[in-house]
């Protein structure tokens, strides 16, 4: 799996709980040296070791933890670039939801060897969506739910989210969009630069 993904886990722990906590996680997962390089690739096997270690050290359930990681990815000032890149996907939350189908392609366009799990949006009735997430990693659906929760706020939309366990290896996020223009949300200036 790509170093960017591993590095995101590390940054989540470091930014939310501090370097010492990360060192505990790294020691438990046998990562030496205890740092991930964003631009290198790592063994896929390592992912569950890291996530298990994170759960053990923080004493948190996988799903809860992953949802928090997802929220972190699009709300922390240190990850502003991720939020900006997602906002390029659409003008409003609904637009953004439809752009998620392209997310793996968009990621590959930016970093050619970056593979993220496939996601697929289905629209049932007006304002009713389900996002089918392939989950090679247990909890990926939760992570997407964390991302969507924050992005809905970011766009100023009011939406209800629910996670449903699908068949093995896939999660379904049910999305009920109640109001697109519920609040002002955060501004997105096309020409600004993420620092």
């Amino acid at each position, binding site marked *: 799996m790509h170093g*960017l993904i591993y590095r995101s886990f590390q940054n989540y722990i470091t930014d939310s709980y501090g370097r010492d906590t990360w060192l505990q996680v790294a020691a438990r997962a046998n990562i030496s040296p205890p740092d991930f390089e964003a*631009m*290198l690739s790592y063994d896929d096997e390592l992912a569950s070791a890291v996530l298990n270690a994170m759960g053990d050290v923080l004493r948190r359930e996988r799903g809860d933890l992953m949802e928090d990681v997802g929220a972190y990815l699009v709300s922390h000032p240190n990850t502003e670039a991720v939020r900006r890149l997602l906002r*390029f996907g659409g003008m409003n939350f609904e637009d953004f939801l439809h752009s998620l189908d392209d997310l793996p392609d968009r990621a590959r366009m*930016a970093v050619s060897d970056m593979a993220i799990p496939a996601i697929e949006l289905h629209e049932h009735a007006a304002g009713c969506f389900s996002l089918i997430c392939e989950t090679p990693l247990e909890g990926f659906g939760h992570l997407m739910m964390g991302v969507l929760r924050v992005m809905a706020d970011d766009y100023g939309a009011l939406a209800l989210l629910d996670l449903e366990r699908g068949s093995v290896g896939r999660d379904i996020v049910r999305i009920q969009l109640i109001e697109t223009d519920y609040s002002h949300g955060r501004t997105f200036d*096309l*020409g600004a*630069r*993420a620092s």
Partner: protein
Amino acid sequence: MGFNPDVLDVLCPMHLMLDAQGIITHVGPTTQKLRPDMVLQGLSFMEAFNVMRPRGIKTLAALRQAGQVKLHLELAGTPPARLKGVLVHDGGGAMIVNLSFGISILDGVRDYALTNADFAATDLAIEMLYLVEAKSAAMEASRMLNQRLQGAKDAAEEQAYTDTLTGLRNRRALDETLERLLNARAAFAVMHIDLDYFKAVNDTLGHAAGDHVLQVVARIMLEETRASDMVARVGGDEFTVILPKVGDIDVLERVGRRIIDRIEAPVPFNDALCKISASIGTVWIQSSRTATRETVMEDADLALYASKNEGRARQTMYTPELRSSASSANSTTPPKARGTAKS
């Protein structure tokens, strides 16, 4: 036939419509965003725009004649706006000019605070902005990785134990080994070896010859010592060998002799023969309680000087007498002067 402005506003929001006289009759919504306070409608196109390329186009007639080529335009007013454009006739005498930022899209978006809505749905401008931002972020991450790798490389070189030219150990490695043996009160010998006439090789045949000789000498020393011995290059043409667990002074005599004999064999380099020799000063320490790294190296140095003074190409074993003779000799003649007198 004419064009419906509402259709054009959707398909190409950054456009202008002109009548047959070149007067602007309709302004696309994004075009208007470039000059929010300027009334473009009713202005002559040639007044509002300066045609930069193709060069020499000053009149509408000339512009018409140029045909449907790519135009480089400059819009009047501030901030300066350089745009790309193309002009087409609608067949009924009117004209349409479609505009684009071209490569300066990033500046355009920033200068005029444009949003997704200002571009046609099929325009790749937003994708382009996304790519620029994503690639810059990825490039920055790569740059940081490179910087860290460079730092790690520098640190590794600083901590290296190897002499890059000969592959022998360096002074750092030697000092640490000496320290360790002394702390353990081990018995060991130190040979300080200095090449004779090496400077002449360097001066007459060049540095490449000198480097080659050093590599040959290094190999000889490795071959003539045991795997448990340590051979280090500690200066330009200075070497130090540490020999742990030496049982007999005769062993040291034999090793030193063999090293000198082999070093004296001329080394071919290109068409020349490099002839050098070596002088050795050796200290044999039998679990001393008082020796330090400094005293050991000093004793080896004294013995080396004695070899040089005796006519080079030989090995001298350190004895305390050397110290007193050196100091008495020192008081009368400086050692350096004596050395040159004898060579």
